[in-house]
């Protein structure tokens, strides 16, 4: 889901930067207000986890690859705004040091994975958890569903960005200037593979880590409860 340089035209990547700027600004402000010193190690861990889990490319035999992102998990543990910062840092490091995701597409990739996926994951988890206790099994299920749905919404958002390029940029000869695949190809491809495979990977890691923390240190799951927007 890391859109490389060249797939999005300048208008699309520019707009996504402009959209992300106020989101990053709010994230910083909220973090400044609510982030407690004892949460900082967990924030670093969530970012590092997000970075490394994206290196686990899961193959579709004979087809493409994809991976989980850890974004919903970060949101559940830290709240959406702090998680936005954590996943943004992971994505920026991937783009700058490893060329994974384009420089011009940092705004777009952060919008998909550090904003859409983080917020979708957070609110779905909250909604499904309801008032259940932090150690309840319902929360494990909530985490899994949040991970699955959130990554699929992010994949859909990326697919829309890919898919509108042929509409926006065409040469006189009818060739696309940037991503040549329209919505009719990009959406089924991106959504299909995430619904079939990668969404389940995200669901599994999100649910398993929550399950582990319920046993190991439920206070980490409670800490988030106090952090409001």
């Amino acid at each position, binding site marked *: *889901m890391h859109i490389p340089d060249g797939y999005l035209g300048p208008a699309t990547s520019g707009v996504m930067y402009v959209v992300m700027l106020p989101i990053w600004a709010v994230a910083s402000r909220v973090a400044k207000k609510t982030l407690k010193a004892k949460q900082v190690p967990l924030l670093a861990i969530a970012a590092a986890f997000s970075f490394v889990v994206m290196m686990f490319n899961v193959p579709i035999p004979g087809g493409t690859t*994809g*991976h989980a992102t850890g974004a919903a998990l970060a949101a559940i543990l830290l709240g959406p705004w702090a998680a936005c910062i954590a996943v943004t840092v992971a994505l920026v490091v991937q783009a700058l040091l490893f*060329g994974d995701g384009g420089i011009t597409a940092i705004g777009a990739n952060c919008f998909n994975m550090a904003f859409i996926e983080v917020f979708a994951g957070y609110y779905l988890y909250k909604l499904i958890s309801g008032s259940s206790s932090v150690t309840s099994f319902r929360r494990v299920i909530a985490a899994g569903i949040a991970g699955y749905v959130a990554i699929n919404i992010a994949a859909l958002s990326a697919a829309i960005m890919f898919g509108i390029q042929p509409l926006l940029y065409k040469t006189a000869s009818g060739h696309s200037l940037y991503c040549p695949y329209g919505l009719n190809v990009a959406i089924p491809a991106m959504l299909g593979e995430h619904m079939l495979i990668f969404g389940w990977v995200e669901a599994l890691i999100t649910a398993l880590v929550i399950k582990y923390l319920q046993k190991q240190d439920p206070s980490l799951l409670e800490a988030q409860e106090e952090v409001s927007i």
Partner: protein
Amino acid sequence: MKTTVKLWIGIGVLALLSPLGLILPEHFKAGDAWGEWGADTFKELVGYIPQGLEKLSSLWSAPIPDYAFKGWEEKGLAGLSFAYITSAVIGIFVTACLVILIAKFLSKKD
């Protein structure tokens, strides 16, 4: 043991296992992620290389492109795996340091 220490150990284990993300796709003959092909691949995919895409695709040359060392292309899966683990360690370290720096910067301002 503190939970954070255990979680860091878990991340260390993930870094060591990360080559699975390289070896499994290779084994199952899975190609690039959808929408992450190199510019040249478009010749096979759609018959031409989109001009703008070709120009922008080489905009940035990352120091460790695709988690692999430059000039190690001949070293096979073992070499690639080593580079992958090294990349994971570097990436985890840089990411964690940046987050801590940002958190420090945010909390100091008050």
